[in-house]
């Protein structure tokens, strides 16, 4: 199957008013590329309380198979709120690069 184009090639191909007729289209926007620092979770200190999951404004944190809460780095913008809220001190922000 032909891969769907990420962007319309010409301005004429835009839908009127840039309306989007495909659900979930913002999944394609990997806002994680804007990140300057990433959250690193020390699983030895994590108590799986999920406070990071609750506070993440991006909604990009989910539980993995072992029950730990991990950020999806495709979408995590590196705001650091999870690290700030993590009271057991399991999440640390580490500079990218």
């Amino acid at each position, binding site marked *: 199957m032909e891969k769907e184009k990420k962007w319309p090639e010409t*301005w*004429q191909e835009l839908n009127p*008013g*840039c*309306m989007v007729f495909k659900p979930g289209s913002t999944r394609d*926007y990997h806002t994680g590329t804007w990140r300057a620092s990433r959250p690193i979770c020390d699983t030895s200190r994590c108590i799986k309380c999920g406070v990071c999951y609750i506070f993440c404004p991006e909604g990009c944190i989910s539980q993995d198979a072992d029950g730990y809460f991990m950020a999806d780095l495709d979408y995590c913008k590196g705001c650091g709120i999870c690290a700030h809220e993590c009271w057991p001190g399991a999440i640390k922000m580490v500079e990218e690069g």
Partner: protein
Amino acid sequence: MSERIGMEIALAAAEAVALCKPDVIAAYPITPNTHIPEHLSDIVAEGRLDADFICVESEHSALSACCGASGAGARAFTATSSQGLLYMAEIVPIVPSMRLPIVMAIGNRAVSGPINIWNDHSDIMSQRDSGWISMFAADGQETIDMMIQAFKIAEHRDVMLPVNVNLDGFQLTHVVEPMMMPSQKEVDRFLPAYKPYAAVHPDNIVSMGALGMPEIFNEAMMAKDDALINSKKIILEVWKEWEDQFGRKYEPIGAYRMEGAEVALLTMGSMGDTAEVAIDELREKGVKAGLLKMKLWRPFPTEELLKAVSGLKSLAVIDRAVSFGGPSGPVCSEVKSALYDKKERPLITNYIIGLGGRDVLVADFVKIVEKAIGAQKKKPAKAYEIYGVRGS
């Protein structure tokens, strides 16, 4: 059959809007607004119009509510003025970007300060580049007619853009005039029911107002500009249909006594009617003077302007707003820019007049025409003159 009425123009505008059967009207009802939404709320309360009247807490919310309603497929209307339009400003450019055919009446009033509630065009000029179709009514009849035309133009599938109809605050909004009010049957014949291109509904998958990344933004702005420029074709079509049905002619730039004219005034809004009297006086004296009345401000009628000024020696552009620190008044800057490429063009002078409700008299226009004639011999030192300033 149309009925001859005598009515305050703001009320007549509301009656005309009601004939278009909007589904949703959202407006902030007090100062600086006019009687337009107030009277519409009466019409809804009386049960003459089946519409949701949303009495919002601000103009920002008024246009936001209209956006939501229009996005859901409703015919939506709002009205504002002056600071109200400025309070709305955050939403104003979003409406054409989303291609929502909202109609808005603007009872043009000065932007403060000093605090002022009277007429000039500084409110709409601040929203000039927002992407709306923008037209100016010269009198009550044009106000009624343009209100009805606006819905048809806005909702046309080849347009899908919002329209603002400008009527001078006080000089038009608060004045009683004799007008022909079309009947419901006539309006129903002229204006078909609104069929939205897309509408937000649980059964339809559509997102409106989504994020536009840098990779898409140039293209999106190009599409927006293209839509506005192309709307002129439909505006002209709809005006022709109006003329065929109601017998009243509309053109982007109306001409008054332009036969053989060597000097002309160019006005927008209600000043046109006053200027007509001045032109009559001048013609009686043998001055070859004429008048151009600009009705369509956006999309800017470049072609029609070029045609209208051909043969003129001197053109006095009348502005009713100041572009502070700019090369001239907002209308004159555009007129000059449109004529720049033309080899033969009239001498253009610019007079800014009638700010914040200052009276504009027939004698003022006579004097301005005389100035414009004199300018051919001796060019004024400044590109524009704020007319009638004491001490200057």
